[in-house]
Every structure is written in C-alpha cells, then in structure tokens.
C-alpha cells in the first residue's frame, strides 16, 4: 500500500470551529487494506461551515519525516492531519509570497528569510535539486538546525490547533533508547512536552513501538511486536498484554536508505526520497535506481531483525509467550511495495528466538503511531 499525496487531501479540521471558506472536504473511505479512498466531488458538512466536534484526547506522531496528528469525532471516525517535517528557505519577495499563498503553499518569514514548510518544501527541493532542511535528525530534534524549534512549533499548531479544553491530553511519540548510537531522548522528549504545553495541551510521551502495539495488536490482547519504521529510526516494542517488555530503537531508517542511495547514484537525498516514494516494488526492481533502493532496504531490514534477535537473546526481562505472536510493521518506511515480503524473506534467514505466527503490515502504516497515541489519550478520558 502506498499513501500518496492525493490520498491526503484538504478539508477536515479537527477541533471545534468551521473550516476556512472555500475549502472542500474530501469524502474518504478506508478499504480493507487500509488505503484511503477519496471522493473529491463530495462536499461535506465541514466545507459548509458546520462545526465538527472531536472527543477529548489527541494523538501525535512526532516523526523525523512526517508529523501526524489524530483526533476522533463523536461518530468514532478518526481524522488525521499530516505535515512533512521539512522546510526550505527561498528568496523572499511580495510576488513570491502572493504566488505561494495562491498555490496553497505554506510559508513563514524567520529572521528575514522566507521559509516554505511541509510537503511543498520537499517538492520545491526536488524541482531545484536542493536538500530540504530538517528540524529532526535520527528521530530527535536536530542540534544542527537553529530554526528547528520555531518551525516545529508552527507545524504542530497547524496540525493540532487549540485544545478543545485547556489541558487536553495529547500523547506524543518518542523514540526508545537507541542501541547503536549514543543519543539521549530526554532533551527531545522535554522539548516536545514543553511545546505541547505552550499550545495548551497536557503532553504525555509514548514510546513509538508501543504506540504501534496500541493501534495494531488489539485482537492479540496487545501482545506481540510492534515495529515502526520511520525516517530516522526503527523503533521496536515487545509487548505482553499492553505492557512493554522490551523497547529499543536503531538509528537507521528511511533517511539512511536515501543517503546511501543518493551516494551511490550521485543524486540529492531528496531526489532519492522521491524515487523511493514514486511506487517502487523492492521485490521487483526495474532499473539501477530501484535496485539501489532494494539493496539498502534489504540491508536495513536484515540489520533491524538481527538487532531484535540479539536483544531478545541478551535481555533478562523477556516474557515467556504462551502462544506464537504477531509482528506488525508500521511507519512511512514500510510503505514501499514488497516491504513485508522482503521482511519475511530476511526473517527466514535468522533463527528467531520466539515463535511467530504472522508478519503483517499495519492497517494504516503511516498513521499507526499517531492512532496508537490517540488510543492512549482516549483511554485516559
């Protein structure tokens, strides 16, 4: 399944209040595979100015590549808002500003520089063969980006809006401690906690892999392994009856693939991302570019599985699972065609220490972490 930009159209605004004039809500249905079907011709209540109320409690996936918020309305529908976690500075003049607003492109002027944020930044970077600037790196707030915090704040404001009630609970995803890098998540966690508080929310951190367990393993009594393959990291959580027994992360993700593909092909990383997202099937690469993507994907999956295995074998806190468990893969990096097949293929090559009954994709891979955070928030209300 691939979630393309067309799947994520404009229109719905979680929270009380009307959608801005002129916006058209997209009537979407989710099919069996979790893909989003859209009907662009339909006008919904939100487009006509009728307020849509959401229940108290929000979910927020703070990802290196994407920021995803979720909220549930009174009918039980989950509404997702998504922003690419990237920006790009361009030359500012009045003509460009007007043009960008007309084209529905978000910009902000910071320290006299015009910054395009979200998906348009990524698209512009590809057109001009430039690299986007990223507020986050390796799953955490980037120490190299001086503009990271104001940009993140603005992106979160657009995704969450004001809380329905002051102090509304919003669980946000944080990476587990990485096993292959000397990184500390405390600062990152504190920054986003403070940021949410400044927006009026009661921000609570939730380990990313655990969020996948909450959204995808309900039928298994929240027992199994949740894997979130993100842009900066792979997060893994082994859960027994909703309690995390083991959580860790590795600092290789989609960005690692992009960097390496870009290196071997002599292109920009943004261009490599675009190649990866245009609909590659890694079980059937068609050209040299796709072969490079396949090689690095296979290596990443193998690396992740090897790390999971070695952590299982060395951990003393692993529960004894009475029955074979499920492994669920979520996250934007798992969206590429053939991901699960290659995962299963690599899984067969290692002698996994726990009996596994199935390896499957999340219902909504891109939204899974956010939905898991939403479940955690709603469960507290």
């Amino acid at each position, binding site marked *: 399944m691939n979630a393309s930009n067309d*799947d*994520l159209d404009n229109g719905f*605004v979680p929270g009380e209040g009307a959608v801005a004039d002129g916006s058209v809500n997209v009537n979407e249905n989710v099919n069996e595979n979790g893909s989003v079907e859209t009907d662009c011709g339909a006008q919904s209540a939100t487009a006509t100015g009728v307020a849509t109320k959401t229940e108290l409690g929000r979910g927020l996936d703070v990802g290196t590549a994407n920021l995803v918020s979720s909220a549930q309305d009174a009918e039980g529908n989950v509404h997702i808002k998504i922003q690419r976690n990237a920006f790009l500075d361009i030359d500012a003049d009045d003509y460009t500003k007007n043009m960008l607003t007309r084209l529905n492109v*978000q*910009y*902000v002027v910071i320290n006299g520089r015009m910054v395009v944020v979200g*998906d348009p930044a990524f698209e512009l970077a590809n057109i001009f063969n430039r690299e986007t600037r990223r507020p986050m790196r390796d799953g955490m707030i980037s120490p190299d980006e001086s503009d990271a915090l104001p940009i993140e704040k603005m992106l979160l*404001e657009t995704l969450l809006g004001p809380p329905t009630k002051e102090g509304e609970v919003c669980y946000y995803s944080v990476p587990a401690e990485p096993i292959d890098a000397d990184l500390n998540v405390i600062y990152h966690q504190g920054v986003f906690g*403070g940021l949410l508080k400044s927006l009026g929310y009661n921000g609570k951190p939730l380990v990313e892999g655990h969020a996948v367990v909450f959204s995808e393993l309900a039928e298994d009594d929240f027992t199994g392994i949740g894997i979130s393959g993100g842009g900066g990291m792979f997060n893994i959580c082994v859960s027994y009856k*909703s309690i995390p027994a083991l959580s860790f992360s590795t600092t290789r993700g989609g960005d690692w693939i992009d960097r390496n593909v870009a290196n071997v092909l002599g292109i920009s990383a943004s261009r490599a991302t675009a190649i990866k997202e245009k609909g590659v099937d890694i079980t059937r690469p068609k050209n040299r570019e796709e072969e490079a993507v396949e090689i690095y994907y296979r290596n990443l999956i193998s690396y992740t599985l090897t790390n999971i295995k070695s952590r299982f074998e060395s951990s003393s806190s692993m529960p004894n699972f009475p029955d074979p468990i499920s492994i669920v893969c979520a996250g934007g990096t798992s969206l590429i065609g053939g991901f699960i097949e290659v995962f299963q293929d690599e899984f067969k090559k290692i002698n996994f220490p726990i009996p596994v009954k199935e390896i499957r994709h999340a219902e909504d891979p891109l939204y899974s972490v956010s939905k898991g955070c939403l479940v955690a928030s709603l469960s507290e209300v």
Partner: protein
Amino acid sequence: MSKPLSVQDVIRQSATDVGLDELSRRGCRKVKVLDKQTVFRLIDEAVNRVVEERLAAATAQEREQIRAEARSEFQRLVKERQEQLEERVQREVSAATEEARAHADQQVQEYQERLAQLESQVGQEVEEGRVPGASAIDPELLGSMIREAVAQAAPTSTGPSADLAALQQSIEALSRKVSAGGPGGSSSSSSIEPPSEEALQAFFSRSSSSEQVESNISNVEVKNAKANGVNKNLAKLRSLKQGSE
C-alpha cells in the same frame, strides 16, 4: 655557478624593432616569422646536443665535477627558497597575531565596561527595590564577584584568545553564581541537565507572544485523511485495564 640565463630576455635585448613601412622601403615583401616556442625548442635541441657531445667526451673526473657543481647549485637554491618562505610566514604570523591581540584587547575592554555598567545598574535596582528577590543579593558581594571575574580574566601569557575565553568563562561563572544566590550555590555542578518543563514552556510562550512572525500558515489547509476507527482498540484496552485493577 653563474646566474641562470633567461632566453626570453636575451632575445628581447638582441632584437631590433623594425616598422612595417621601413621593411617595405627596404623592399621586403615577405617576412619569415619564427615563433617563441620554436626558438626555445631549437635552443633546447642545440644545448642538449652540445651537452651530450661534451659528456661523451668528458673524463670520469670531469663528470664528477659537473655532478658536484649541479648538486651544490641545487642545495643553494633550496636553501634560498626556504629562507624566503620562512621570512614570509614569519611576517604574516606576526601581523595576524598583532591584529588578534588588538581585537582581543578591545573586546576585553568592552566586557569590562559592560560589567561595570551592569554592576552599577544592579546596585541601583537593588537600592530601589525593583529586582524581585533583591533582598537575597548583597550589592557588595555582587561587586566583589564581578571584580573577581575580571581579575580571573586578566591577560595571560597564553595569548589573546585564551584571555578572551577566560573572561567569557568568568562571566558565565559569575552569572551562575548570581542566579544561585552566592558563591556557595550550585555553580560547582558541571553536568548538563535537560531543560525543565517550566523553562521550555516559558521559552515557547515567550517566542509566540513577543515575536510577530509573518506567515500564511493559518490561511493554508493542511493535508487531511480519515483512518480506521480505534473504538475496538479502546474498548479492549479499557477492559484490560479494568481486569488488571
């Protein structure tokens, strides 16, 4: 050994400029032109041929003499170049050092002036009772701490940049001491703590209220989608929680 011969100079000195009109008067209608590269090549060939002939005819002693002269000339040239290079580097280093020292002196002076100004300002505000918690700050103690900081940052023999760094460190130490309420405060702690939630909240609140940011973000729609509901998960999680209670 004699000074190296510049063929180009010799040609220039030996040649005579003759105008085209003059040549025409002399009845020259065509002129044979020999370009510089060809001249050099011809000279090289001639010299090589003579040297080869001479060397073939030279005795072992003469060859050894030529080798010794060549070696000696080569060593002289290397030495000469090295001396020139060293002289130049020394000149540049001393100029850069002077410039850095002047810059550092100026900055040290600016810091001292700023400290004096701060000292007087804080003293005044404490006197007027305008500083919250002012009663905890002793102006004399503050003054002595500032003087101590400046003394610690006095120029040393290690160079201007070290002086500047020392002064900056002293000012930071002073700042920590002041915020801790005195020299015995928490300034001894060297570990870097993550920012407190209150500090982060204050940071974000301040940045949103004080800075007017130009943006069209509120006018632009964010991408939306609907996803599968989570009621089943929620019910299951709640029942698990109740079961475990």
